[in-house]
């Protein structure tokens, strides 16, 4: 299984690990701007649980790459205060699940200060975390909470699905003057992908059409983009042409690209590793049914995680999550309807 290819190819490209694409972005940005600092658990000398800060401590020292105690609320609170006081912090939560401990600081402070201060304070804060199910990590190390943040006015929500997107979107996140929730997928970190050489940024709110097709549109985020691409390749052999769209950021959300695709294909499947009820799949379906209703030739279908906590048992976990096979089944049903 592999991720989306990069769209822009007028640069030299090399294959590097997804996790190293993030490290490159951080290195370049931290060299550019001395106000950036990075805090989190085990991100100093250890280089991060996923090696996501490998080499940064050696380059930038203890003041700018600082290990934290297990204090999610405290470290995000520090990030908010530091961002208001002229620094540009990146706070690494490591496992997205633990972000629940810091929700008050994210929602009530980080997201809200710019508005309630009448634009006088900006909060240039990146909260980084890794989500998703990989190798049976159970309910406390698998969750995909991105819809929660998308619901909060003031937060931008980034879900990079390729190594090149990690780099370009991380740089944009750091340069953004507001709080950004930057969520990678744990499955990707040690996978390799093509990344352009040199500096580049990818703007928020610009979806990636990862594969062109004419029969069905799949909207998918993060690891589900990879599943959708694999399913699309297999379905091509059955004569079904699938277009795969990765929004890359769900706030801001690129409605135009999705609506244009649905106008072409007339059929939409939304694949979401998070639960369905009140989730992002519901929002995307609502957008298309209210703004692209006349373009739809069939009801929108949604394939999401079941509405359960993450079970540890591998058989149960597989039953809970979307897979390449279940995506193919959904597409076949959609084409037949």
């Amino acid at each position, binding site marked *: 299984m592999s991720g989306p290819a990069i769209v822009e190819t007028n640069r030299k490209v090399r294959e590097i690990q997804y996790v190293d694409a993030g490290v490159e972005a951080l290195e370049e940005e931290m060299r550019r701007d*001395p*106000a950036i*600092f990075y805090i989190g658990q085990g991100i100093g000398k250890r280089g991060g649980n996923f090696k996501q800060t490998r080499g940064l401590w050696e380059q930038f020292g203890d*003041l*700018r790459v*600082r290990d*934290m*105690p297990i*204090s999610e*609320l*405290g*470290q*995000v*609170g*520090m*990030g*908010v*205060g*530091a*961002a*208001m*006081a*002229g*620094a540009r*912090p990146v706070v690494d939560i490591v496992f997205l699940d633990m972000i629940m401990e810091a929700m*008050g*600081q994210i929602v*009530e*402070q980080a997201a*809200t*200060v*710019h*508005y*309630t*201060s*009448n*634009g*006088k*304070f*900006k*909060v*240039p804060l990146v909260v980084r975390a890794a989500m998703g199910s990989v190798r049976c990590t159970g309910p406390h190390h698998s969750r995909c909470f991105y819809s929660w943040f998308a619901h909060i*006015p*003031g937060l*931008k929500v980034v879900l990079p699905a390729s190594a090149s997107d990690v780099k370009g979107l991380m740089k944009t996140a750091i340069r*953004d*003057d*507001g709080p950004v929730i930057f969520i990678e997928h744990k499955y990707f970190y040690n996978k390799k992908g093509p990344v352009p050489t040199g500096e580049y940024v990818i703007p928020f709110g610009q979806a990636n059409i990862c594969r062109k097709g004419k029969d069905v549109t799949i909207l998918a985020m993060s690891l589900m983009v990879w599943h959708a691409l694999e399913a699309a390749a297999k379905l091509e052999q059955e004569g079904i042409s699938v277009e795969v769209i990765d929004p890359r950021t769900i706030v801001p959300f690129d409605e135009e690209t999705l609506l244009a695709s649905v106008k072409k294909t007339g059929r939409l499947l939304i694949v979401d590793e998070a639960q369905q009820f009140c989730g992002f799949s519901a929002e995307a379906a609502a957008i298309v049914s209210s703004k692209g209703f006349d373009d739809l030739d069939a009801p929108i279908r949604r394939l999401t995680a079941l509405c359960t906590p993450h079970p540890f048992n591998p058989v149960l976990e597989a039953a809970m999550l979307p897979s390449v096979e279940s995506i193919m089944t959904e597409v076949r049903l959609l084409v037949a309807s």
Partner: protein
Amino acid sequence: MEASKDLALALYKSMRRIREFELRLQQVYRSGAMPGFIHLYVGEEAVAAGVCAHLTREDYVTSTHRGHGHAVAKGVPMGEVFAEIWGKPRGVNGGRGGSMHIYDPSCGFLGTNGIVGAGIPMASGAAMAALVNATGRVAVSFFGDGAVNNCAFHEGINLAAALRLPAIFVCENNMYATETPFDRVTANTNVASRGAAYGLPGIAVDGNDVLEVYRIAGEAVLRARAGEGPTLIECATYRHLGHFEGDPGTGYRSKEEIADWKRRDPIDRLRYTMFASNISSEQDVNAADSEVDDEIEQAYQWAAASPEADPATVTQFVYA
């Protein structure tokens, strides 16, 4: 503590400014003209005045739901604070924040706050920014006894101590979290003693003695600026009024207790000390009083003259 005339008068004016500002607010609120809720600081002014006297305009403060006094003492223009609490566009935040969301970057004021304890780790962060950007600034967090059993207190203070951040944590212990007595929900009510748990100095001070608050805060600010790390200061104080304007504050506190604390009013005490020690004359104090009265009247008039908000602005400033 011995005080010079200039210092004593400055502290006196600072406290009285907060007092009269809030009593004027109370008048307007009681008239029904002011939306929302306000939590008044009357009785606790020595803490804001004594601590903020050591801060430069660039130093940082995080505050609480009972934060008008911190905003005024830190130098947020009083007219703009008045208008903000009144919900008017002339307010420092255009009236979209109100009493519990007063922010002013021009004087390092990182906000009053509707969430108890939230400002504590934020102050650690502001202190961290001061180190990263090498500005030499310090950060002060004010919070009540209600905050000290919250994890924001534990995490924020531990982080500041572990990283030796230039921060000062000031607990305004008024003995009640809304109506809940501190000792009913806390086994160790000695807040200063918690400093030992986090490896930083914890100092208890009579929070109604502004000269003592000033002295202790001065040492803490010096320590912070010298790179010696944070200090926890517990100020014993009392709010004369209810938790919010409209709460008589008597259902859960005895009349005797309230009367006893009113006898220890920080403004009366300083005035008495100034006269008793011949630091300043009645004439000086009267002059200071009338200066403050003029300032308050101007602040009120300026706020009252504000136009109403334009509903078209409601969606501004959601995303930076």
